[in-house]
């Protein structure tokens, strides 16, 4: 049995998922449709948008904020962070610029989320 906390509102319903002898999944404890959808997505393909920073040279601060331009599978978050570790960029940068293409084979790109003008 697996327990999830629904994230859609402050109630935070505890949703339990169990599998019976016939291999059929039972989702219980949600109190609205959004809760059921959330539980189904979390069970089949949980994804997250990863936000982090990379080294920035020639800017007013040392780090450039970045994100994945689409949610990636939860299991790939660590790989994604490792892939960003050696990355460094030079100013100027435009928000939306692609910093890493197709990160870790997820199909998502790492893009800049802040514009840094030339100094």
């Amino acid at each position, binding site marked *: 049995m697996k327990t*999830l*906390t*629904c*994230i*859609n*509102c*402050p*109630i*935070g319903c505890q949703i339990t998922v169990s599998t019976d002898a016939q291999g059929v999944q039972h989702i219980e404890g949600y109190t609205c449709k959004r809760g059921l959808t959330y539980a189904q997505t979390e069970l089949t393909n949980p994804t*997250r*948008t*990863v*936000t*982090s*920073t990379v*080294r920035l040279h020639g800017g*007013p*601060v*040392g*780090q450039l*904020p970045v*994100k994945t331009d689409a949610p990636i599978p*939860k299991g790939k*978050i660590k790989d994604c*962070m490792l892939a960003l570790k050696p990355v460094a960029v030079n100013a100027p940068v435009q*928000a939306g610029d692609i910093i890493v293409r197709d990160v870790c084979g997820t199909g998502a790109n790492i893009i800049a*989320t*802040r*514009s840094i003008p030339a100094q």
Partner: protein
Amino acid sequence: MQEIDLAIIGGGPAGLAAALGAHAEGVKDIVIFERDSAPGGILNQCIHNGFGLHTFKEELTGPEYAERFLQQVLAAKIPIWRNTMVLDITPGRVITAVNEQGEVKVKAKAIILAMGCRERPRGALNIPGTRPAGIFTAGTAQKYVNLNGYLPGREVVILGSGDIGLIMARRLTLEGAHVQAVVELMPFSTGLKRNIVQCLDDFGIPLMLSHTVTEIIGKKRVEAVKIAQVDDKRQPIAGTEQLIKCDTLLLSVGLLPENELSKSAGVQLSPITGGAVVDDRLQTSVEGIFACGNVLHVHDLVDFVSEESMLAGRSAARYILKNQSQKRHNIPIITKQGVRYTVPSFVDPALMDDPLAVRFRVDKVYRDHRICVYFGDQLETSRKTRILTPGEMESVTLTRAMFEKHAGAPSVTIAIEEA
């Protein structure tokens, strides 16, 4: 002395939106005073996403949200005085600031206070123990990691489970630190459920409710913290103490509006919010001085900061263009049963925005209760809610029609009642 129409103190989300609100209403002679080298305020270090769902119907990161407003401010050619620290404001609206040019004095027809808030520090909690390195407020740690690229520690305990603490638990974990626990004094977290799941549960970080840090141990650097369970009066329970070895303690224990300048201007402050007492235009007790954003009351969503600040901007513009104060007939908004405060505190039905959003916070968690609005002793509206929590700002909408229906009502009351 230079004279301008409108001075905005702070170039964060509140200041930027206030400038746009005033500009759209017809005031063009505006200066935004920003003490940092870049505008955007705290959003620059809030690199996580989830901003702007109400305003833009999409999930933006903090820097992206700030940039959308900044671009409009730059397009409107509203000057931002960067690296400029305001030192004093007089009730007569003379601003003294300091920057690379030295001391600058400016007289403004109207001022909008948009200085934001600061974090409660260790000193506000009186945690016993030594005073080693390794104790940071969560926001300071966030600045080190996200702007400067420094990791503040390896083995981390976080006190306080507000959103900044939760966000930092994930951020430090992703950057290779080990977050041992998030310790929360209250029996519930004031953070969003989404953050509890995606910042703690996703990484297996324990959330210890009804616990607190009772001692900090370490000579030069934090070596450990002692934590204990607390009873329903929030007092540590003897015998429940445990020692957690760590090199870093982050404090995420509340935010305080930064109102030193408001005080020097003679603005009356609310003992509950720590921000100014304002009317429906967001004007403070000092004529021509307005307030918005976290300096007025601490928000949880930046979208509402922007919305509120646009109103402050429009109000200041109207004040400047009419260049005289209108005779107002203020009706007080009274809080009862569970409502800690409202913003605004007064409303003039004839002059207010229609409809007008009145924002408030509740004092504890309420399940299946109603938000009730009374005009005098007449119940006007009541809305059923499944849950109300202190961590989420609520609002009710007042309309001119309601005031016309209840003409002569001496006050409006907002109360939480059982459903």
